[in-house]
């Protein structure tokens, strides 16, 4: 029996290949994600270890909590106060210390000398630091010399390459304080890498770095090299004893481990995000497998019945189908792992294109990756074949003798209806509970609910496939016989059409949901601006990268400006969990925006109190005058008094403090945006030009009126939507392979009918057109179902996020129609191969009798 199975498998190589392809892509995505993130982990681990090898012990200020994900604004990452520079002399005197060097790091953004635009800032940070090879042993000059003197800078090799910077050139650098010009004296790299994970780096000599980074008289850390024979732990203990309160000594290995851990946390998020898309692709692949095996079993009814007549048991027949699935799954998973390595390299190339340069290291294919890939691919395939296999086992021996008729009928529609409704309702229920309830693992619940909803609708879809396909096809019926027959073919086997369309439904459902969410976000932001924004102009950078407060100072001096109100953002902790706050200027904030705050809030803000978004306060039963259990990285737990509540949180989030308070707890002072109010009677255009001139030297600041600011925000959202849609494209691609596969099998099944049509005068072109229309209808059917689900999901998500500021629901009709049209075009694409095959059919052979 096994022998017969494998024989029949090999006899259909093409079908095997097409079926396997969907799994290969899905598994490839999974394996690729692991390979890429493992490789990145390894690369940075190596780098941190190498960097740490320069020093043995590091002295730094204590931090209240471990560094976590960087949030928006300057204060989201690791927050430590600087330490006095005379500590260098103190620790240098500790027995066993051979040398001690201070290091400073901070915000420094270079300006492209050719275009005048600021370099980088989107994603990876832009750093300035002192030239300190003790702190980073991997740091080495590629050309030129180390910086010596107040006008010299060394830049990282990646930035130099990308912007064609060379030694001797003059470059402008932006800081938290005033911007300055420097001469490039050297280009530096880190071992084999041109930069550190995409960050741009400007290096100065120590006094210059301290001055421009606003850290005069202080260092962020002191890097110590010990005498030979003194162990790191012993040295650390000795140094620690010499340090004052609030300063700690740690071994460089500890720092490397911390850095690794922080990076792994970041990468873990990245990995999870990629894996979500990979599993969506696999989920779609499962539909394809299910569908292909269903069709194959239907077509092989006679063969299976013959086996049954010859004495094969039901169990053997079922096993034969499952063994076939197992073989396909295993084979596809192995190919998927190979594809995964390719995908990982491709993604790495993509990152490099975004200027995120990975230190070179060997590609990491861990046993875990292989096991997960094989397991996932094989299990998904076998699981998807169980239902078709059970159907195969039900074939009665007598069917070998009967003329096999294509059964288009949907059997037991009542059972299907009930099962479909139960699964759909369960899925939506889980989804909504995940969104609106407060379960422990909301994300997983939402994901499972969405998957169940898709399965439920897929179960229901054969019931509606026929009327929907008929409606979609109605306009093309008039286009002649090809359209008419294509429509009939799409309707003739609703189960097959529906399950083929279901695969596409998933991709489009998610794409539609993202589109709706994005449109709602934009509309909500617009509404927020309309309701609250009183400012005439907004200063921000191209990608909302924080910038120097100097810009606001310069803008406020431009004639016609009544107020330039600064907004800073930062991460802190409330009750131990990460939260974000916005710092505003109590003296001017009311002129530019309205928080709809409780009376007395603004004076309280100026007093050092915190304002809390009304809903959050209610949720936590906090009242005005209560103490907010806040903690900052620099100082640890610092309860703040709640000075008021407000109801307008769309611009400022859930917590608001004054700029003065912000300065107390955050080491870096950078503005996220600045809102400008004009004096009555001032000409907006003149003032805008004035501010533009005044802030031109920053290179990256845009001055926009409300409309332009709104457009920019929309552009930012569009970018994100584009990225997510691109990642979902894999799922859509796999669904298209599903259409190719189904049509191919249908063409094979209808050989005789196609022969007849050709015999009575149908041209090849008409045959191709017929197959195309069938594909278009199936694709649009999938799109219609998907968009319907997408609207439901999008609406639920918007409702769930309403309290986060997504108050408006927008359904972008034009865009959804565009998706429908694109789905139809994709159907045309999917039909190319099957249509060609159908058109090339040998007429004589097709109509010959057996």
């Amino acid at each position: 029996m096994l022998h017969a199975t494998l024989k029949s498998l090999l006899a259909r190589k093409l079908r095997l290949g097409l079926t396997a392809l969907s799994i290969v892509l899905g598994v490839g995505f999974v394996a690729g994600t692991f390979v890429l993130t493992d490789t990145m982990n390894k690369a940075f681990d190596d780098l941190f270890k190498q960097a740490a090898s320069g020093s043995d012990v590091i002295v730094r200020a204590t931090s209240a909590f471990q560094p976590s994900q960087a949030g928006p604004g300057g204060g989201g990452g690791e927050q430590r106060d600087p330490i006095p520079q005379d500590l260098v002399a103190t620790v240098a005197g500790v027995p066993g210390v051979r040398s001690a060097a201070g290091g400073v790091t901070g915000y420094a953004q270079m300006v492209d000398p050719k275009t005048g635009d600021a370099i980088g800032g989107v994603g990876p940070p832009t750093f300035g630091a002192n030239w300190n090879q003790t702190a980073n042993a991997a740091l080495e000059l590629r050309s030129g010399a180390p910086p010596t003197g107040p006008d010299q800078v060394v830049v990282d090799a990646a930035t130099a390459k990308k912007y064609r910077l060379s030694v001797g050139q003059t470059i402008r650098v932006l800081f938290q304080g005033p911007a300055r010009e420097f001469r490039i004296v050297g280009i530096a790299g880190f071992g084999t890498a041109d930069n550190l994970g995409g960050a741009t780096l400007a290096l100065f000599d120590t006094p210059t770095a301290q001055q421009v980074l606003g850290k005069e008289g202080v260092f962020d850390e002191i890097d110590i090299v010990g005498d030979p024979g003194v162990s790191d732990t012993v040295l650390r203990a000795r140094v620690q004893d010499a340090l004052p309160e609030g300063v700690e000594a740690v071994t460089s290995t500890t720092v490397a481990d911390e850095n690794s851990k922080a990076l792994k946390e970041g990468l873990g998020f990245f990995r999870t995000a990629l894996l979500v898309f990979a599993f969506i692709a696999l989920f779609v692949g499962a539909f394809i497998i299910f569908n292909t095996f269903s069709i194959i079993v239907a077509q092989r009814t006679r063969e299976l019945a013959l086996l049954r007549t010859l004495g094969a048991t039901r169990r053997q027949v079922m096993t034969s189908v499952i063994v076939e699935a197992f073989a396909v799954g295993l084979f596809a998973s192995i190919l998927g792992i190979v594809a995964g390595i390719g995908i990982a390299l491709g993604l790495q190339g993509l990152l490099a294109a975004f200027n995120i340069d990975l230190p070179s290291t060997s590609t990491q294919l861990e046993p875990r990756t292989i096991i997960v890939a094989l397991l996932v691919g094989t299990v998904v395939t076998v699981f998807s074949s169980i239902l078709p296999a059970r159907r195969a086992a039900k074939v009665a021996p007598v069917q070998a003798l009967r003329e096999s008729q294509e059964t288009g009928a949907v059997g037991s529609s009542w059972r299907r209806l009930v099962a479909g409704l139960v699964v759909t309702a369960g899925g939506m229920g889980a989804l909504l509970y995940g969104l609106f309830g407060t379960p422990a693992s909301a994300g997983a619940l939402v994901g499972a609910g969405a998957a169940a909803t898709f399965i439920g609708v897929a179960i229901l879809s054969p019931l509606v496939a026929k009327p929907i396909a008929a409606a979609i096809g109605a306009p093309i019926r008039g286009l002649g016989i090809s359209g008419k027959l294509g429509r009939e073919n799409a309707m003739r086997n609703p189960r097959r059409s529906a399950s083929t369309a279901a695969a596409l439904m998933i991709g489009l459902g998610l794409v539609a949901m993202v589109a709706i969410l994005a449109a709602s976000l934009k509309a909500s932001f617009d509404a927020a601006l309309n309701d609250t924004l009183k400012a005439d102009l907004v200063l921000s950078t191209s990608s909302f990268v924080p910038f120097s407060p100097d810009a606001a100072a310069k803008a406020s001096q431009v004639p016609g400006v009544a107020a330039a109100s600064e907004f800073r953002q930062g991460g802190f902790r409330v009750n131990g969990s990460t939260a974000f706050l916005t710092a505003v200027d109590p003296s001017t904030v009311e002129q530019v925006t309205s928080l709809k705050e409780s009376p007395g809030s603004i004076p309280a803000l100026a007093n050092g109190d915190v304002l809390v978004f009304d809903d959050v306060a209610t949720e936590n039963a906090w009242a005005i005058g209560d103490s907010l259990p806040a903690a900052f990285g620099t100082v640890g737990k610092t309860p703040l008094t709640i000075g008021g509540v407000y109801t307008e949180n769309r611009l400022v989030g859930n917590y608001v403090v004054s700029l003065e308070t912000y300065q107390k707890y955050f080491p870096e002072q950078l503005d996220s945006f600045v809102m400008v109010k004009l004096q009555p009677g001032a000409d907006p255009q003149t003032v805008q030009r004035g501010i533009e001139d005044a802030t031109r030297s920053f290179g990256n600041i845009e001055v926009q009126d409300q409309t332009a600011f709104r457009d920019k925000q929309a552009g930012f959202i569009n970018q994100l939507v584009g990225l997510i849609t691109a990642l979902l494209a894999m799922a859509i691609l796999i669904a298209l392979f599903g259409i190719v596969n189904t049509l191919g099998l249908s063409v094979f099944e209808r050989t005789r009918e196609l022969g007849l049509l050709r015999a009575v005068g149908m041209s090849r072109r008409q045959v191709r057109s017929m197959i195309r229309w069938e594909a278009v209808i199936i694709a649009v059917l999938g799109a219609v179902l998907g968009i319907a689900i997408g609207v439901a999901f999008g609406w639920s998500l918007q409702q769930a996020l309403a309290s986060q500021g997504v108050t408006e629901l927008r359904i972008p009709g034009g865009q959804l129609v565009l998706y429908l049209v694109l789905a139809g075009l994709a159907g045309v694409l999917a039909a190319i191969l099957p249509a060609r095959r159908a058109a090339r059919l040998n007429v004589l052979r097709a109509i010959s009798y057996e």
Partner: protein
Amino acid sequence: MDLYKVYGSGDAEVVALGGVTVDFEAGRFTAIMGPSGSGKSTLLHCMAGLDAPSAGQVFIGEVDLTTLSEKQLTLLRREKVGFVFQAYNLVPTLTAAENITLPLDIAGDKPDRGWFDTVVDAVGLRSRLGHHPSELSGGQQQRVAGARALVSKPDIVYADEPTGNLDSKSSAELLSFLRSAVDDHRQTIVMVTHDPSAASFADRVVFLSDGHVVDEMRDPTSERVLDRLKSLEV
């Protein structure tokens, strides 16, 4: 026209048609008979432009089929030729009426209402026009195929064992219909059959054996055809 059809080459060569010259008169019903493997079907396929002869020429009217491209042959089949096959004659997704007008729909032509009614009434399918093939009996299906073959008023209708799967009553109904198309509308029909009683409906019978025309008979009867066939098989 000295038609040759050779399959394979060298030792594996099978000569299906070994120099056949035969003409079919317009407005007549001709049957082609012969034992299995005599080349009947191959001859029919070559004459209908479904298969290309290895050598020789095929004319429908003035047109030499062997000079036509695949595209031209498709057009020719659409416009000048009607077909009735032994089985699988109908498209399962189309109704009887749609199957009948299929060649016209493929050409994008409007059916001639009067002629359509004439044909439909002649096959006695008026009440069944809205049915799908799966709802029709074998005999009815073949009559729908017959109506389809005639609806585009082709120069010639080829029938390949049209009664092969039918009982005698259904066979007789179909053959009477074909006969009346010749008598009432001067339709030209060529039919391959191995059934002497089917052949008896024809004006003329051409006998084929081993790829050659060996005999022909005018105004055949079942008995005479049967006798002739017996002598051929000996």
